Structures are given as structure tokens and as C-alpha cells.
């Protein structure tokens, strides 16, 4: 009962903060309430309070539609609550019961009229394929093949039709397996088993999804299995309310949906900051020493090694690692360099703060060194007090509070939605190496007298190419993620980019850059639109790791040349200020552009191409490619 009293007090505190006009504090407490008590009733409270705070918090608005064959309504408040807590202001439209085929096929349906950012297609095996479900034992092998074919075809058609009618993201639930196959243990002996029939259908749906941009599958069967089929299903609720999922499991479905919404809205963490003592290893290195800390393949050290394994997996998704630890540098480095149980080594970390300074200050410095926003950081710590301090000092940081039992550490990190990605580019996989090269560059820079000498020494090269199928994912990703050197901060899905590129008056370019220290990969995007007199820059952005070494000038100069080549008199573009793109503010005036107009959104700059052509920086060798830049 005391925990109930506590959440009651929290609710009162939240309402007091809202009444006092303190939205950030109210939001922090709403997050705390949700972590303590994440049920249906609390969800309704959390959603209603966040709705009162609308416009006062930096949440990303997002529109989600759900086309379905079963009752999902009770999941919606849970989803909206967890989304609000994650900084996503979700508006949800639920399609009519079992009307999903018409809604997808009819382009004037309420589904499309809602103009969703994303659509979830949630259809149960029992509903779309009763023959693969309760009637399976009646089927001859031929009929099984026909059923697989029919269901796969349905999904292919729906996915194709959806793509023709909408640019929204589509998330398709794959089919689930029955709790018990109809043939019992015999099923596993059969060549045409029920479970393999469902698996084959799923493989065909996955294949259909992969043939279209922005279509993803949700492995619903794996989700159900993770929490246990017997716990998941509630036959009684299915029969009386067409709700097949038990009350206790609804949260897991909403969390799984969130894992897609987080990368789709860009509310991801780009870097994970870890503690060392009692996190990456058990014990305190400064007291227990190299032989005393727990870190091995056996109990109890195995718990810490598993956590390191999961952390290492994150780097393969392009997530950077950093250390923030109160320790003596020498003690910590000895363990990092030479403890035989360590899976993570110093070269896995893009930044390190091992000292006795204030934790929040260290975290700020890490963000600055990695050149990413504080809101792109996640921090993992075993100490609840330090977690609370970081939440209070830096509410933008995602704090991962490790549970008491170290054996639960790895699972806690794996469940964290801020590390989810829906696509992966080559750049993502090499990101840590980029940062290590960057450290070498900064060290070299300090030995040169002038910037120009340093630029020449770098031997920079840049490849500019029009968008290709291979570079589409990365180009879209850059528009989604680049915040600092981004003139207009327009976010585009892959689908939208390919549609823009197909228009005759638009051009979409990417730029790759490399120098003597290494390859930066594909780091910049420019999108232009021609009108009669001028070439308008719709999007111009560069990843922060190359800004300030004149790659941006090379790209702009190229756009100018091309526009002049097409007979355009002017190159023009908007600067749309955001909280984060200050580094791009002076970009146009620095290159001779004149202010043309100004409104509430931003400033429009233009350059007369005849009078002020933009000089190409001589120290960059520019390659103009016709094809691949992937």
C-alpha cells in the first residue's frame, strides 16, 4: 500500500507542477510515475497530463494509424503514455474492426485521410488464415501450399497498394504460431508441418516488405514467445471483446511498437555513456584491484561480461561508447587495457572521462567532444542516486538505471528502445573508427600554423554523386539525424527522397569525403529545386564530423556551377533556425549570399551566380560521379 500512497503523492506533485507552470518538472515526475507504475489506469493519467502540457515540451508530434483484425484500443493509452515519456506526442487512429483490406486498397479511406506518419498492420494468423490455424489438420499438402501462397499474395498486394497510395512508413505484424500445433508432437516430424507453413508465410511477407522503401516487419511471434504464449493469450477476452491479449501483456505490445517509433521519430541515443565500477565489472578497481574485480565467463563475473557483450553489439549498430567514471585514471586504464575478462577495450570508446569531477559536467564534455547533442546521449549507471542526479541536472539525457541484480544488467540494456535502428548504413558500422581518426586529426591540426596549411596536409578528397538506390538509406538517415549543420532541417523518409529525385525539377546529391587519416563516408546531402530564374536549395546538410574543413564550400560551389550550367541566374536558399543549427547560421552570408527576405520561419538568402561565383577550395580534390556513392 505504501507504493500506492507514493504514486498518489507523485500524482499530486505532477498536478501542482502543471498548475505552477513548470512543465519540465512535471514531465520528469510523469516519467518517474510511469517507471514505478505502468498500467492502464496510470496510462490514462499520464496521457491526460501530457495533453495539458502540449506545446510546452519539446516533444515530436507523430501520427500513427493502426489497421487491425482485433481489438487494440486498450493498448493505445499505454502506447501513448510510454511514447510521451519518450518525448513523442502520438496521435493515434484505429481503423475499423477487420476493415484493413478496404482501408488499404481504397485511397480515400479514413486511413489515408488521417495522413499518418506510420501505419501498423496488425493481423492475426487466426483471422487471415484460419486454414493455417484451427483447420490445419484438414489440409492436404497441396492445400497447405495454396494457403501459404494466398496469404503471402494478400500481404504483397496490400504492401504494394499501400506504397502507391501513401508515403508513410508501414510496419507489418508477421504471423504468430499456435500455442500447440494441431498435430501435437507429430507436427515437428512432418515435412509440411503447421509451424513451417507459418514460417514460410512469414518469410514471404518479409521478402515483400524488403522490396519497398519504408516497409518494416514486426516479428509478432517472437514477441509473443518472449513473454510466453500461455501468458500472452486470453481466450475469454477474445470471445467477449475480440481482444486476444491478456491485460498483463498489453504493455509489452506497446513497448514493441515504441521500439519502431523511436528510430522513426529520431528520438534515438547516438552514444552510450557507461560507468566502470559495478557496471562493466563487479567491484571497485581502485580498491579490489585487477585480481579482485569480478569479470570472467563464470559466475559472478559472467553478468558483467554479458553486459559488455550487449554494449559491444550496440557499437555494431553505430552507437558510440564513452566512459564516465569516478576513478584513478591509471587503475581504470590498466583494467581496460589488460584485464583478460574485458571484451571492451580503449579503442571501443570514442571519449573517456575518468576523473573525480562532477558527473553532469563530464557528461556535458563528452557530448561536446563527440559533437552530438546532450539529448543524443544515454547514460547507464548502477547507482540510483547518481541516476537521479543526472536526471535532475540533464533531463535531456536518457538514463538507464541498472537493476540490483547484475544478472539482469544485460537484459535491461537490450530492452532500451533508444538504441533501436531500422536500417544500418556502412557509416553506422564504422562510426567508432571515425571518431578515433578524428582524435588523430585534432592532434595533427595543432602542429600547423595556418588553417590552409592544415587543409593541404589533410589531402582531402570529395566525391559528389546523384542519389542512387545504394545511397538512399544513408541520405534519408542524414536528413533525419543531422541537427547542427543543417540549413533547413527537413526530415525525409527514403520514400520521399526517391520521389523528390524522380521529379524533373529536383536534384538530390550526396557527398563522400576522405583524407589522409581515413574515410569519412557519406557525410553530406544537398537537394535543389529549379524554378524559372533560380536554383533553390531545399536541403543542405553535413555531418558534424567534417564541418569546418571546407567540404561544405566544395558542395555549395558545385551546386552553383551546376545551376549556372542550366542557365540559372541565382542560387538561393533558406536558413530555418532551430535550437541546434546555430553552426549553419552564417553559412550563406559567408559565401557572399545576400539577404532577400525574412519571415517567422527563417531567412532567405540568394546569390547572383554571374557576379559572385563560389570558388572551389583548391585543397579539396573533387570527383563528380555519375553513379554509385554508396
Amino acid at each position, binding site marked *: *500500500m505504501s507504493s*500506492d500512497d507514493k504514486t*498518489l503523492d507523485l500524482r499530486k506533485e505532477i498536478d501542482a507542477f502543471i498548475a505552477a507552470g513548470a512543465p519540465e518538472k512535471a514531465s520528469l515526475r510523469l516519467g518517474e510515475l510511469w517507471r514505478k507504475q505502468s498500467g*492502464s*489506469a496510470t496510462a490514462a493519467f499520464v496521457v*491526460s497530463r501530457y495533453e495539458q502540457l502540449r506545446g510546452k515540451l519539446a516533444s515530436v508530434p507523430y501520427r500513427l494509424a493502426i489497421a487491425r483484425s482485433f481489438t487494440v*484500443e*486498450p493498448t493505445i493509452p499505454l502506447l501513448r503514455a510510454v511514447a510521451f515519456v519518450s518525448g513523442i506526442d502520438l496521435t493515434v487512429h484505429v481503423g475499423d474492426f477487420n476493415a484493413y483490406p478496404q482501408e488499404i486498397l481504397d485511397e480515400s479511406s479514413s486511413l489515408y485521410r488521417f495522413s499518418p506518419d506510420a501505419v501498423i498492420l496488425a493481423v492475426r494468423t487466426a483471422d487471415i488464415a484460419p486454414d493455417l490455424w484451427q483447420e490445419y489438420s484438414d489440409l492436404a499438402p497441396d492445400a497447405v501450399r495454396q494457403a501459404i501462397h494466398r496469404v503471402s499474395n494478400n500481404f504483397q498486394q496490400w504492401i504494394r497498394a499501400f506504397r502507391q497510395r501513401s508515403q508513410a512508413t508501414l510496419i507489418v505484424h508477421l504471423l504468430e504460431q499456435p500455442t500447440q500445433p494441431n498435430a501435437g508432437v507429430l507436427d515437428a516430424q512432418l515435412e509440411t508441418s503447421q509451424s513451417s507453413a507459418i514460417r514460410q508465410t512469414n518469410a514471404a511477407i518479409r521478402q515483400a516488405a524488403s522490396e519497398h522503401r519504408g516497409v518494416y516487419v514486426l516479428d509478432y511471434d517472437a514477441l509473443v514467445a518472449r513473454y510466453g504464449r500461455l501468458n500472452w493469450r486470453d481466450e*475469454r477476452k477474445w470471445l467477449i471483446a475480440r481482444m486476444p491479449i491478456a*491485460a498483463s501483456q498489453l504493455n509489452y505490445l506497446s513497448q514493441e511498437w515504441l521500439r519502431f517509433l523511436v528510430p522513426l521519430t529520431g528520438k534515438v541515443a547516438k552514444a552510450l555513456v557507461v560507468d566502470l565500477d559495478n557496471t562493466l565489472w563487479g567491484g571497485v578497481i581502485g580498491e579490489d584491484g585487477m585480481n579482485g574485480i569480478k569479470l570472467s565467463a563464470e559466475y559472478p563475473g559472467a553478468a558483467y561480461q554479458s553486459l559488455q557483450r550487449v554494449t559491444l553489439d550496440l557499437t555494431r549498430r553505430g552507437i558510440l561508447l564513452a566512459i564516465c567514471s569516478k576513478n584513478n585514471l591509471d587503475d581504470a586504464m590498466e583494467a581496460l587495457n589488460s584485464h583478460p575478462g574485458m571484451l571492451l577495450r580503449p579503442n571501443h570508446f570514442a571519449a573517456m572521462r575518468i576523473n573525480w569531477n562532477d558527473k553532469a559536467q563530464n557528461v556535458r564534455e563528452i557530448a561536446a567532444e563527440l559533437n552530438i547533442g546532450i539529448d543524443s546521449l544515454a547514460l547507464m549507471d548502477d547507482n540510483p542516486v547518481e541516476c537521479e542526479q543526472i536526471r535532475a541536472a540533464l533531463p535531456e539525457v536518457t538514463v538507464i538505471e541498472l537493476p540490483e541484480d547484475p544478472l539482469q544488467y544485460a537484459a535491461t540494456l537490450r530492452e532500451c528502445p533508444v538504441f533501436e535502428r531500422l536500417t544500418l548504413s556502412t557509416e553506422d558500422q564504422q562510426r567508432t573508427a571515425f571518431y578515433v581518426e578524428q582524435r588523430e586529426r585534432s592532434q595533427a591540426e595543432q602542429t600547423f600554423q595556418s588553417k590552409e596549411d592544415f587543409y593541404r596536409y589533410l589531402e582531402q578528397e570529395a566525391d559528389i554523386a546523384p542519389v542512387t538506390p545504394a545511397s538512399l538509406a544513408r541520405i534519408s538517415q542524414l536528413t533525419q539525424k543531422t541537427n547542427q549543420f543543417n540549413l533547413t532541417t527537413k526530415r525525409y523518409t527514403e520514400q520521399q527522397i526517391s520521389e523528390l529525385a524522380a521529379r524533373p525539377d529536383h536534384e538530390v546529391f550526396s557527398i563522400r569525403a576522405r583524407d589522409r587519416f581515413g574515410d569519412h563516408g557519406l557525410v553530406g546531402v544537398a537537394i535543389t529545386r529549379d524554378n524559372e530564374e533560380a536554383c533553390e536549395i531545399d536541403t543542405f546538410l553535413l555531418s558534424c564530423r567534417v564541418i569546418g574543413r571546407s567540404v561544405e564550400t566544395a558542395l555549395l560551389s558545385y551546386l552553383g556551377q551546376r545551376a549556372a550550367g542550366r542557365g540559372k541566374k541565382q542560387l538561393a536558399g533558406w536558413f530555418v533556425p532551430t535550437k541546434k543549427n546555430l553552426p549553419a547560421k552564417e553559412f550563406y552570408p559567408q559565401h557572399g549570399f545576400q539577404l532577400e527576405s525574412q519571415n517567422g520561419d527563417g531567412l532567405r538568402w540568394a546569390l547572383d551566380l554571374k557576379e559572385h561565383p563560389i570558388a572551389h577550395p583548391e585543397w579539396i580534390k573533387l570527383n563528380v560521379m555519375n553513379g554509385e556513392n554508396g
Partner: protein
Amino acid sequence: MTSNIFEQVRSIASDLFSIPSERITAESSPENIEAWDSTQHLNLVLALEEAFDFQLSPEEMEKMRNIGEVVKVVESKISATKS
């Protein structure tokens, strides 16, 4: 115990129907609480199942016509699981 369960049911209903718990009485029902529609009734059932860790039968859901009846159903479920 009775008043305790009443308080818990009240606080769940207060969250779901977005009204202060002081305004919820044993007589509160879909007739006098506007937000208490069929969707919210299902949400109420689910929230009770979560909070008290039991499953309600269709017959029990039918009986829950006002907050007083809800409390009775919850009490009988709890005493049934204890005995």
C-alpha cells in the same frame, strides 16, 4: 479492508475517467460519468485485472454497473482467491 479496496478502485476510476477521486462514489456509473463508455469499461476491467492480479469472467463484467458493484466484485474475487 473494504474502504481500502474502495479507495483503490476510486483511484483507478479517477485515472481512467479523468475526474477527481473525491467525486467518485458508490453510485457513480456510466449514467453519470460521461467518459465511462464501452471502451473505457474494457479499460476498467483490464486495469482491475492488472491491479489485483485476477481475471474477471463475462458474468462479473456484466455485474459491474456502478462503482459500488465494482467494489463488490473485486472483494468477492479477492476473498475467493484467499480461501
